C-alpha cells in the first residue's frame, strides 16, 4: 500500500470527482444535450404529421391510425416544451445570484477544478493574476462555468500540438472600468476564415463540438453587462477574454 496521497487520483478520489464535475458542468455539453434532445421530438412530430398527410390521401382512411399519430404528435410537442423550459431555466438571467466577488478567487477555483483535466491533456496550467483588482458583482457559479468552458476549449485546441510545451494561461487584469479574465493558449489559434463564425450557434471546428459553448457563454456574460471576445495570442495561439464591469451590488 502506498501512502494515502495517491488515493486522490483514483476515480472515486477527490481528483476523479472533480474531473467528473468539471465534465458535467461544462456548458457546451449541457447545451449539446439540449439541442440533440430537442431535435428528437421535432423529428418524430414531422414524421407523424407527414404520415397523417399520406394516410388522408388513401381511399379508406383508418381513423385509429390517424388518432395514434395525432396523440404521438401531442406527446412529442409536450416533450419539446419541457426541454425548452429546461433551457430557459439554464439561461434566464434573473436566476442570477449576484454577489460581490473577488475575480482572482473565482479564477483560482476554476484553475483547481481544471487542473486534473489539464494533466490528462498534457497541458501546464499557468496563472497570471493582477493584484488590487476591484471586486465585481456577478453570479460566481455562472461566470466560473464560462471560464471553465473557455479553459476546456483551450485544452482541446492544444490536442493537435506536440506534447511537451502545451500551456494554458489564466490571467486577470484591469481593463478600464472593467476587469478582464483571459484564457490564453499556445496552440494553433483560430483560423482567420472562421474568426467571425466562432460565436455563431452550431458552428464548431471540432468533430464532436456542438457549436453552443461560446454562444451560451456570450449570453451569460452579456447578462452580467460584460462582453466576451477573441484576439490572437502572441507569439501564437488563441486568447479568449471576458470583460466584467466593476460595479457595486445594487
Amino acid at each position, binding site marked *: 500500500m502506498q501512502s494515502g496521497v495517491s488515493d486522490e487520483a483514483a476515480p472515486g478520489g477527490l481528483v476523479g470527482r472533480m474531473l467528473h464535475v468539471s465534465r458535467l458542468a461544462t456548458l457546451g455539453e449541457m447545451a449539446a444535450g439540449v439541442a440533440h434532445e430537442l431535435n428528437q421530438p421535432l423529428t418524430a412530430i414531422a414524421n407523424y404529421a407527414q404520415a397523417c398527410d399520406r394516410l388522408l390521401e388513401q381511399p379508406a382512411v383508418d381513423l385509429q391510425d390517424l388518432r395514434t399519430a395525432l396523440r404521438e404528435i401531442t406527446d*412529442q410537442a409536450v416533450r419539446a416544451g419541457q426541454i425548452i423550459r429546461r433551457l430557459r431555466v439554464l439561461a434566464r438571467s434573473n436566476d442570477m445570484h449576484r454577489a460581490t466577488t473577488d475575480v482572482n478567487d473565482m479564477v483560482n477555483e476554476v484553475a483547481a477544478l481544471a487542473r486534473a483535466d489539464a494533466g490528462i491533456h498534457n497541458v501546464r496550467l499557468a496563472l497570471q493574476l493582477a493584484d488590487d483588482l476591484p471586486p465585481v458583482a456577478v453570479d460566481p457559479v455562472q461566470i466560473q462555468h464560462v471560464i471553465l468552458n473557455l479553459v476546456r476549449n483551450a485544452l482541446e485546441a492544444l490536442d493537435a500540438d506536440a506534447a511537451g510545451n502545451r500551456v494554458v494561461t489564466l490571467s486577470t487584469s484591469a481593463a478600464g472600468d472593467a476587469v478582464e479574465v483571459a484564457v490564453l493558449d499556445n496552440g494553433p489559434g483560430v483560423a482567420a476564415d472562421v474568426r467571425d463564425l466562432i460565436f455563431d450557434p*452550431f458552428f464548431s471546428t471540432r468533430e464532436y463540438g456542438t457549436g453552443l459553448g461560446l454562444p451560451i457563454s456570450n449570453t451569460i456574460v452579456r447578462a452580467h453587462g460584460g462582453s466576451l471576445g477573441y484576439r490572437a495570442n502572441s507569439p501564437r495561439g488563441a486568447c479568449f477574454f471576458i470583460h466584467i464591469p466593476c460595479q457595486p451590488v445594487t
Partner: protein
Amino acid sequence: MQHSKPQAQPQAPTVFVVDDDEAVRNSIRFLLRSVGIATRPLSSAAEFLAGYSPYQPGCLVLDVRMPAMSGLELQQQLNLRGATIPVIFITGHGDIPMAVEAMQQGAFDFLQKPFRDQDLIDRIQKALAKDAQVRTALREQDRIQARFDSLTPREREVLGLMAKGMPNKVMAAELGLSQRTVEIHRARVMEKSGATSLAHLVRMYMDLERAAP
C-alpha cells in the same frame, strides 16, 4: 476452395431503423408503413449487430449519435465484416462533421433531422435498388466461381496459361504434355467454365482474380 454458403434465398428486403430514441424510431416506422415499407426498428447498434445476417437484403437507417456504440462505430464494424448493406445516416444539427466522416467511410447517404418524408422514402428506395444490384452481382460472381472451382488442378494450370495467351505448342512444352492432351484440357476448361470464347473466359478469370480477397 470451399463454397458452403447457403444459397441466398430471394428474401424480402428489410429496412432496419436503428435509433436510441423510441419516439423517433416509432415515428419512422409509422411513416414508412403509411407508404407500405416494412421496417425493423432497433434501439441500439448492439441489437442490430446481434441479429445481423449478410444474407438479409435491405438497407439500414442509422442514427449517428447514440450512447454505447455510435452510428459511426457500427458502420466501422460493418465495414470490417465486409458488409455491403447500404447505410443512410440520420443526423442532428451539430453532427455534420460526423456525417461527412460517415460519407467518407462509404455511407450511402445522410439526412438531417427532421427530414421531409419524401427525401427519406426516395433514399430508401435508391438504397434498396443498390443493395439488390450488389447482391445480383455477387450471386453471379459466386456462380462463376463455382464453375471455376470444378476445374482439376491440371485444368487450372492450363487456364492460367491460356489467360496469358500462350499457344498450345508452347504450353505443351511448358507442361511436359502432348499437344493433343493440352487441346483436351483446353476444351474441358471452356466447357466447365461455360465460356463462349477465349475472350469471355479471360474476362471471367480476371474478374474472379480481382474479386479474390
